[in-house]
């Protein structure tokens, strides 16, 4: 009798040990599968979030176009970057995208607000907007006599050259003779990149030795993706930041405490991704064209141009009448800005940073911003 009880006690102990080891071992065996399920759930969440960000216009539908946008504006009730005025899918509103640019002088939405609006408590995310290819100037464009020379190199993001990419160049240049300012725009015929991905071109100018000149080169690859880049002998911009909100151009102070001398706007030109040029504004030494330093929220000048949003501008060139960098008295100076600031050859990133790529998932898709194709990428992870 005692012997049987003892045997059972030993048996129970062994079974207990086997049970405990089973409980420990089995989850380890199925850990890989559990991890896969977890990652799949994360991927589903990422896809839903990505679709919300890219397909939803948000609420109100024009939240990016508020002129008096506040930091983390409470009027934004739902977050989405889709363009409410375009019936196509995956077309983003540049006004909304630029509200993600940290340091936007006209305020932005910070990461915590967007995360809260997307209902992503407990998750972290990062949104990347990646240009489709790279365009770099091989050297600063230069003028010999009245001919301007430029050369650009077009490469895939991997660094491989892109042959047969089409590049169109437009030169904008100024010359001041006495108190008279000349301002001109000249376009050149398209040039194809060679096997090394290099396009070299020249533009005949209307007059020789311009003081300031700027070349914008629009590069199109296979008719599907376009980039606009610029370079030249332009003025180091200490005059004003150039901002666009829907149809309105707003010039703001570059540095808060920097006093400004009198500056007038002579000309404004806008380019779109198709290479179309819009002669937006012709000013002069009048009150309407004068920058109003010291008034408003560091705001110098504001003017609405009906149809500017629909034009999908990607770049602006300003011709100011101001003291030039060499203190040679007043003359015309050119200032160029890509709109919004993220429409450059740099990768735009917004949000947190994933601690490890193993515990985060990424989803990607091509999107359109201001008529140009980009790759949007969303990284999502659990925190």
């Amino acid at each position, binding site marked *: 009798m*005692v*012997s049987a009880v*003892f*045997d*059972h006690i*030993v*048996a129970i102990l*062994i*079974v207990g040990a*086997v*049970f405990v080891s*089973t409980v420990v*071992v*089995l989850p380890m*065996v*199925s850990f890989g*599968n*559990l*991890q*896969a*399920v977890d*990652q*799949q759930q994360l*991927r589903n969440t990422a896809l839903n979030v990505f679709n919300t960000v890219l397909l939803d216009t948000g609420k109100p539908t024009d939240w990016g176009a508020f002129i008096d946008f506040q930091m983390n504006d409470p009027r934004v009730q739902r977050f989405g970057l889709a363009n409410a005025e375009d019936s*196509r899918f995956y077309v983003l509103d540049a006004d909304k995208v630029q509200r993600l640019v940290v340091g936007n002088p006209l305020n932005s939405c910070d990461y915590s607000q967007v995360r809260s609006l997307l209902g992503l408590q407990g998750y972290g995310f990062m949104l990347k907007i*990646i240009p*489709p*290819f790279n365009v770099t100037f091989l050297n600063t464009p230069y003028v010999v006599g009245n001919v301007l020379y430029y050369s650009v190199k077009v490469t*895939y*993001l*991997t660094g491989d050259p*892109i*042959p*047969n*990419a089409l590049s169109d160049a437009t030169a904008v240049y100024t010359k001041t003779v006495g108190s008279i300012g000349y301002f001109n725009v000249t376009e050149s015929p398209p040039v194809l990149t060679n096997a090394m991905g290099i396009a070299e071109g020249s533009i005949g100018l209307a007059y020789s030795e311009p003081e300031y000149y700027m070349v914008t080169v629009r590069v199109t*690859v*296979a*008719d*599907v*993706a376009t980039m606009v880049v610029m370079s030249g002998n332009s003025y180091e911009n200490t005059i004003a930041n150039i901002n666009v909100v829907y149809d309105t151009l707003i010039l703001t102070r570059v540095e808060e405490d920097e006093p400004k001398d009198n500056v007038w706007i002579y000309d404004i030109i806008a380019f779109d991704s198709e290479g179309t040029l819009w002669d937006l504004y012709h000013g002069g030494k009048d009150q309407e064209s004068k920058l109003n330093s010291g008034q408003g929220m560091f705001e110098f000048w504001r003017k609405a141009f009906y149809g500017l949003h629909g034009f999908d501008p990607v770049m602006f060139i300003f011709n100011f009448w101001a003291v030039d960098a060499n203190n040679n008295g007043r003359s015309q100076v050119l200032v160029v800005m890509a709109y919004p600031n993220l429409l450059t050859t740099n990768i735009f990133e917004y949000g947190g940073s994933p601690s490890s790529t193993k515990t985060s998932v990424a*989803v*990607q*898709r*091509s999107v359109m911003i201001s008529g140009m*194709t980009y*790759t949007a*990428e969303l990284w999502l992870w659990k925190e």
Partner: protein
Amino acid sequence: MALERIRSFATNKKAQLRIIETILASLIVVAALTFANLYVIAPTSPKYASDELQKLGYNVLQDLYDQDLLARFVYQNEWDNLESALRVTLPRDVYFNLTVYDLDYQKVNDGPILYGSPEAFSSSKNVAAVTYGLTGYPSKVNSTSYQAVYSPRMIILQLSRG
């Protein structure tokens, strides 16, 4: 006393058999649970990652089609443009291999439309394939009318993540 019981246990074949029976029973239970775990097929990450690639590939082809570019590239044999278009619209860590066939399953593109090494497709566990059909391409007859010839093409796009 306990030492005596252990000695008795060591010589008691019946008790030893009970222990062996218990161990065997436990092993059967563990084996059953392990097999059950193997047969409950949980989704694996590569499977879903290839679904993701499939969506990506289909979206890219559909976007090219919507821009009236895909049919132009295929029917006008603009293979270099097709390769460039795919390279600039797909993320850079996604490799592709595209082949165009006619209805007789004859390859139409003369050279490979490939980004990445062929090994990226043969050795990777994470390969997706998208099939996209085109029926024809309209050519301009005069200033007001176009004519399309029915000439189907099958596009097979293989994608792999590098």
